């Protein structure tokens, strides 16, 4: 069909990606989807910290943002191994890769990342303010931590997608993904935590680390899916 306009192609691609997004969201909330695994893990870590550290309220408040971030980071890594593996096991991945000639595979990967984030990581961000109370954090600190988690956790999913794509053919790839991905997520953790502290500790700035965190997420939103698409393209067998 000739005369297909740029706008038409864009509308078509967004329609396709919306269908994929909704399918993955639906899968994550149905039985066996594992959307709650991350949240439960997050909850378990934060709830045990006060028992381990002891009833020193000042200390808990001081380490609160860092603990929330570390727990969130680890919880994010938990469900990543299923990102492409579930599709590979039932043959869907072949068809998703075949779609590459019609719409970029990187776009498909980006959509899957966003669905994964919305399905399994967003609940964790929503639970963070409540868990902040466990850590005796003040309202400003809780708000700042939740905001930095909202902005920063997509970056972890995007890096994780590249790791998940590399390890897609391995039956127990979860550990390998964590090992591959963890070093790359350290910058996200550093800027996320320093922005959270910036909101409560006076001389430290909030805006600068927060903007760098945002930039990291945007940068990885491009790099992660492109790298993952490349790995998936060459990993089919």
């Amino acid at each position, binding site marked *: *069909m*000739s005369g*297909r306009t740029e706008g038409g192609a864009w509308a078509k691609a967004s*329609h*396709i990606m919306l*269908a*994929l997004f909704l*399918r993955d969201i*639906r*899968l994550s909330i*149905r*039985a*066996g*989807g594992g959307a709650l695994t991350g949240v439960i893990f997050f909850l378990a870590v934060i709830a045990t910290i006060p028992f381990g550290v002891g009833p020193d309220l000042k200390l808990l408040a001081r380490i609160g943002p860092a603990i929330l971030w570390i727990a969130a980071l680890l919880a994010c890594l938990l469900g990543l191994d299923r990102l492409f593996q579930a599709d590979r*096991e*039932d*043959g*869907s991945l*072949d*068809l*998703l*890769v*075949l*779609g*590459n*000639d*019609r719409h970029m595979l990187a776009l498909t990967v980006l959509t899957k990342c966003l669905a994964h984030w919305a399905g399994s990581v967003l609940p964790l961000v929503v639970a963070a303010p409540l868990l902040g109370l466990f850590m005796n954090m003040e309202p400003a600190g809780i708000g700042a931590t939740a905001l930095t988690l909202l902005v920063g956790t997509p970056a972890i999913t995007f890096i994780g997608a590249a790791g998940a794509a590399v390890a897609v053919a391995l039956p127990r790839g979860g550990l390998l993904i964590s090992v591959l991905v963890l070093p790359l997520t350290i910058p996200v953790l550093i800027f996320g935590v320093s922005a959270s502290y910036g909101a409560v500790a006076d001389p430290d700035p909030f805006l600068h680390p927060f903007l760098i965190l945002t930039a990291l997420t945007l940068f990885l939103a491009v790099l992660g899916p492109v790298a993952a698409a490349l790995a998936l393209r060459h990993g*089919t*067998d």
Partner: protein
Amino acid sequence: MRLIAENLGGERGGETVFSGIEFALGDGQALVVTGANGAGKSTLLRIIAGLLPVAAGRVRFEGGGEDFPSAASACHYLGHLDAMKSALTVKENLCFWRDFSGAGSRGVEEALETVGLGGIGHLPFGYLSTGQRRRAAIAKLLVSHRPLWLLDEPTAGLDKASEERFGGLMRKHLDGGGIVVAATHLPLGLEGARELVMGMVG
């Protein structure tokens, strides 16, 4: 449209599985690939689809125009796996593949009727029997249009009546100017299809 393989060779894990495969298929032509287990039937189909790299020679797809520039974009690939999610209903699965691959000549309900699964679209895919799953996967070929069908053991698990019904679907696809490449052990009921026997050269 034409699908042409020239001196095609394939390998799996660094070892040559087949070499020197030649064929050219035009509109309305079918190729039935037969051969012993391990002769490289599945590998051949995956190479045509572009899921595996070509080891030697080349595959060309011509005349697809703007909509189907390559074999990968022009093909329906039906592999051993059904590419359906067991947690979703049959209808949800088919609706997703219709949206993802672009709408075809039949709607989801109509496609299910065609493969004899009318009235069970609301069931989760995981509840279906092996033959029903295969039929649902075949319905996937109908909900969006692709001129080239690459079928890997398409009738595995189907009963006699479903086999015949699927034969009819393939003939209809061919009559409409489509191309079929099928790897199989079982007769598919395609009269006038060309046959490629793998594993004869080495």
